[in-house]
């Protein structure tokens, strides 16, 4: 290599330069929810291993999952999953070469922000109904 690599070269502006947009936020959220789901698989493994181990181990999972902080984490996990899923569907549309014009980008962005929220709420209403809470 020559000293070419150490010379100060122009850089493209970083994200703090730009005005915030919904599409930009969704791009970041898709990555953030992906990483959160990655970490969350520890919970899936804990739950399955506890169920396979026996009633005492499973009772520990139940204690945590029915405490307020457990519920909060599970609520966040369910939203992250739905949000990431719809973000993925958005990618599928783009993968076919469609939906790149500004009008459709904006419509799809709004749908992929709203639908996951509605679905998450629906799932928790259903879960509490099964729990007999109402």
């Amino acid at each position, binding site marked *: 290599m020559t000293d070419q690599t150490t010379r100060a070269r122009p850089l493209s502006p970083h994200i703090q330069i730009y005005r915030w947009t919904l599409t930009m936020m969704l791009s970041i959220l898709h990555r953030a929810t992906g990483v959160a789901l990655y970490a969350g698989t520890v919970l899936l493994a804990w739950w399955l291993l506890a169920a396979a181990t026996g009633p005492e181990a499973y009772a520990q999972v139940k204690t945590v999952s029915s405490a307020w902080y457990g519920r909060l984490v599970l609520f966040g996990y369910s939203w992250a999953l739905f949000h990431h*899923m719809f973000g993925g569907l958005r*990618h599928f549309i783009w993968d076919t070469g469609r939906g790149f014009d500004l009008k459709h980008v904006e419509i799809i962005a709004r749908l992929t922000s709203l639908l996951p929220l509605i679905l998450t709420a629906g799932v928790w209403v259903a879960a509490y109904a099964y729990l007999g809470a109402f």
Partner: protein
Amino acid sequence: MSDMRTPLSRVRGLGSAKKGTEHFFMQRVTALANIPLTLFLVGALVVHAGSDYATMTAFLGNPFIGLIMLLLIVSAVYHMRLGLQVVIEDYIHGEASKLLALIANQFFAFTICVACILAVLKLVIG
């Protein structure tokens, strides 16, 4: 702009990583599989929100449920491993720390995968 690639490299179409579109393709295949599989899990968790230990293990011990759980585990872990690999390549630039993070990603993914499979097999087979 002139193409810098040799004719041979263009024919092979494998790019600089020598893997072609495999990473991209498998990210999409597993993403597609993840949709019904995770929806199933969420549905099962909702229906069993109030179930006790015996009901839950009887449910998970059913071979068909076990099959779906195994497919979910393999697909989700494959998918998240590919996904985090890209995140690591994007943000970690030091050669040594990048390599370590990539290896940690493999270890984590395989451990979660094998742990979940072990649990499901025990629940199904007994």
